């Protein structure tokens, strides 16, 4: 495959994933802001920080409100990570690699772009926000459905998967890092309604507020939440799950191309940490330190794969 096509597939999938995560972040923020106990300014601030766009946000806005944040994260095209920008970038990459995509997958991306262009053309009325967020999630789900349902499992699929899961791991780790302090054993007291809301918000931003209860007890517990999002390899947005998938795709590439690179060792090292580690160890050594290290490693892995498979 052309290096440029591998690059296009990788970034197309990263941006589709980003668009979806952005919508979930805003959704979680919206939910939390509706609760009286929370300060909505704090919540919207942490949404922007989780999205990794605090600096550019402050260039344009002075206040963190539902309106400014939703506008910046969803429709502002000067923000390269906004849903509109992400879908546009995904589509441009998709256009570039269209010969590598099934017709269904391409049409799903193209339709998502058309629908987002319509939906996000005018400033968002706060009352429409739930409907818009829903539509964004629906469009990205449709792309993913078409992709998994029709794409041949070959190198095209593998580079796409790698893009999806590098991005997702980054998102989950950043969501956790922004909120890590609410997960730490509190010196004052545990289990206030505010904490509960905060915890639920974390789970909601990774679409795990219901599945949490299927795995753990009904009560939210910080260690369980962290365990779910970091180490549970059956939870589709956990770091362990992402790395299992990246390792699997890299494994297929090694078999198909008949050779391994440094990135195969890198991914195995991280995966081993996630496999054998316990959440207690992570808390003991420092959740924040763990996450910062992980985010750095994850970025380096992405760059290493791009270099070794010649699509940098």
């Amino acid at each position, binding site marked *: 495959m*052309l*290096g440029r096509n591998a690059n296009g597939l990788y970034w197309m999938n990263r941006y589709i994933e980003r668009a979806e995560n952005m919508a979930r972040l805003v959704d979680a923020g919206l939910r939390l802001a509706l609760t009286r106990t929370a300060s909505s300014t704090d919540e919207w601030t942490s949404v922007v920080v989780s999205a990794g766009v605090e600096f550019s946000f402050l260039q344009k806005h002075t206040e963190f409100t539902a309106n400014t944040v939703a506008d910046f994260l969803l429709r502002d095209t000067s923000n390269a990570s906004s849903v509109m920008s992400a879908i546009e970038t995904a589509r*441009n990459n998709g*256009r570039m690699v269209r010969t590598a995509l099934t017709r269904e997958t391409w049409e799903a991306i193209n339709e998502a772009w058309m629908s987002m262009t319509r939906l996000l053309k005018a400033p968002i009325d706060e009352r429409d926000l739930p409907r818009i967020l829903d539509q964004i999630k629906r469009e990205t789900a449709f792309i993913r459905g078409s992709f998994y349902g029709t794409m041949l499992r070959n190198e095209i699929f593998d580079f796409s998967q790698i893009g999806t899961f590098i991005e997702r791991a980054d998102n989950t780790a950043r969501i956790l890092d922004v909120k890590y302090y609410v997960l730490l054993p509190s010196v004052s007291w545990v289990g206030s309604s505010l904490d509960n809301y905060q915890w639920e918000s974390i789970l909601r931003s990774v679409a795990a507020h219901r599945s949490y209860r299927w795995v753990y007890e009904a009560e939210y517990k910080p260690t369980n939440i962290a365990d779910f999002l970091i180490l549970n390899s059956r939870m589709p947005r956990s770091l362990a799950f992402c790395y299992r998938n990246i390792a699997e795709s890299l494994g297929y590439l090694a078999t198909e*191309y008949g050779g391994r690179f440094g990135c195969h060792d890198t991914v195995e090292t991280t995966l081993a940490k996630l496999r054998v580690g316990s959440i207690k160890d992570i808390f003991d050594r420092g959740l924040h330190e763990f996450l910062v290290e992980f985010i750095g490693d994850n970025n380096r892995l992405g760059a290493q794969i791009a270099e070794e498979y*010649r699509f940098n």
Partner: protein
Amino acid sequence: MVAFDEMRPDGSGVRKPYAGYEQWLLKQDPARLTEKMGDAERVFRKTGITFAVYGHEDASEKLIPFDIVPRILSGQEWRRLTQGIEQRVVALNAFLDDIYHRQEILKAGRIPKHLIAGNEAFLPEMIGVRPPAGVYTHIIGVDIVRTGENEFFVLEDNARTPSGVSYMLENRETMMQLFPELFQHVKVRPVENYPQLLRQSLANVKPESCKGTPTIAVLTPGIFNSAYFEHAFLADQMGVELVEGSDLRVVDGHIAMRTTQGYKPIDVLYRRVDDAYLDPLTFRPDSALGVPGIMDVYRAGKITIANAPGTGIADDKAIYSYMPEIIEFYTGRKAILGNIPTWRCSEPDSLKYVQEHLAELVVKEVHGSGGYGMLVGPTASKKERETFAAKLAAKPGNYIAQPTLALSTCPILVEGGLAPRHVDLRPYVLVSDKIQIVPGGLTRVALQEGSLVVNSSQGGGTKDTWVLDD
């Protein structure tokens, strides 16, 4: 000026090629047809069959309007057309070979030397270069207009990188989706195998040094090019890589593409990048669309470039007026398909005539394309004509003029039924060790009532083109 209508000339009965279609049409509910028109647009938009219009502000991607009434040619009409086209294509390739080697036609005085020497489309870099299999122009789109039952003329030979073939294919695909039963009722010859034919044709002109199955690639300027959809479409349908200049470089004397497993050599490059951008070391040094050094590889016979660099000299508008002489010179026969009478404004007598008859003529820039920079005398305002006359007087050599032809019409679906609109036809020709013409082509239609400009950049639309299996 009364135009020949291909379905109902002079408002009389329906012509034979349209009889089967009309039978079907009479049974259709008009409301349903209008609905189908909307369906067609949705199909095109969804699949992303769009084109970019340069200089268009708002919409970077537009649809070429599609009309659901087919343009129909009988098998007999088609056979005559193909004979004329084949003859022309043979002459074009012979002319190119001659002009880059012995230049017999110049020595014989059939074409003035200055038309070649002073022409930007003539590439001195190609002098003495013989392309693989001796083919210069591999893919040609011959623009044909009709003015009567038996009057067909060639308007233009597109011998560089003709576009539009994806519309021919998608139009047929769309028609078959919208009206499956119609194709049972009327037997239409298929066009769907064009991509396979193109691939075989390109494989047949592989460089001599390539012994096995050649690796073929399509070279595109990238996603912002107006015809990007077509480049991707053809690469996809042929099952070959779609490459950009940045993917390619010279490795061990071959052109190679950067893949996830290292550099892989390419044998045949179907390029959709203009000559000037092909090789920054040979042509425009600022071009990022081409491949530095590709001309050296080409001259060494290690790659086939389709179409060959320098083919533009054969479809230049100044050369066009000499095509009857060119055909006779190389084939020894009169042209089967005629040219449109053309006044070369570089010649004083012609210039005088054109200046005096500006209101009746179509005046074109010699190097222009896409319907830009031309004057349609009869429909232009007095002011437009005056402005144009000044340009003409300043640089007469830049212009040619032709009579305003009564292009044939074909009905399109409008509110309230069918209405005639002017059309032209671009069949696609493939040249390798043989010449192949897919039965059909792209019919372009001027959607404005009375308009003669069919270019998509100027508001033209397209139709599915049928050649009957009779």
